[in-house]
């Protein structure tokens, strides 16, 4: 799935990263606990989270995550956006809640780390 398809599926908006919308994502994880995200490496993953702080971007950086989605209409501040620009990680915002966001992406074929 391309990042731009993901934006459509989630009725989302692109906060940063218009240049990266053609990136492919193959896996997804949804969590507000960054250590849980760090526990399992997924190739070409999107991270969905309700947490909004710089450590979300840093976690994504360490994990080579392709895209970050902030759920429940949360919006990152400028320092977070600047960090994401520097690390070249697109930021998406959706008004949908976590469960619904994950459900929609699952419906469209995205899977978790174990592939089920």
């Amino acid at each position, binding site marked *: 799935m391309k990042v731009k398809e993901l934006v459509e599926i989630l009725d989302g908006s692109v906060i940063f990263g218009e240049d990266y919308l053609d990136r492919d994502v193959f896996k997804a994880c949804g969590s507000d606990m*960054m*250590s849980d995200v760090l526990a399992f490496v997924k190739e070409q993953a999107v991270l969905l989270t309700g947490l909004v*702080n710089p*450590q*979300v971007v*840093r976690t994504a*950086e*360490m994990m080579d995550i392709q895209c970050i989605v902030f759920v429940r209409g949360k919006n990152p501040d400028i320092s977070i956006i600047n960090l994401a620009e520097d*690390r070249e990680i697109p930021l998406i915002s959706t008004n949908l809640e976590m469960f619904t966001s994950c459900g929609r992406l699952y419906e469209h074929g995205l899977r978790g780390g174990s592939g089920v």
Partner: protein
Amino acid sequence: MQDTVKLHFDVSGNDFTCAGEASGKIKRTLKQLGFDISLVRNVAIAVYEAEINMVIHADGGVIDVDIDSDCITVVLKDRGPGIPDIELAMKEGYSTAPENVRMLGFGAGMGLPNIKKYTDEMNIDTVIGVGTTITLKVYNK
């Protein structure tokens, strides 16, 4: 790569915003040096968890990295409170992190287990009231 590349970082305590800055630089350096992507990621994740610990549990410290073609060694040294029971601290889910740290997405008690998982060697040297030194090694196989 002939010679050892050495990196040094000062990590300030209680600066949650900047926590992970050193880990990011280490990651980018390893990438530039041409190390395999999964090795780079393993080192980055382990050092990041340890750097976060340094900030949330020990009021900062220093990180020294030795990069050889066959092994990456990272030493994280702090002057924090020390770890009273290492075996307990290594358990998944064990955490003394306060609620405000949990609100920031850490404090799930997965840091030390994650560090162990992503490294080939992990040694914790800790003295109560003096500090903790964590030494990590990842081999380039």
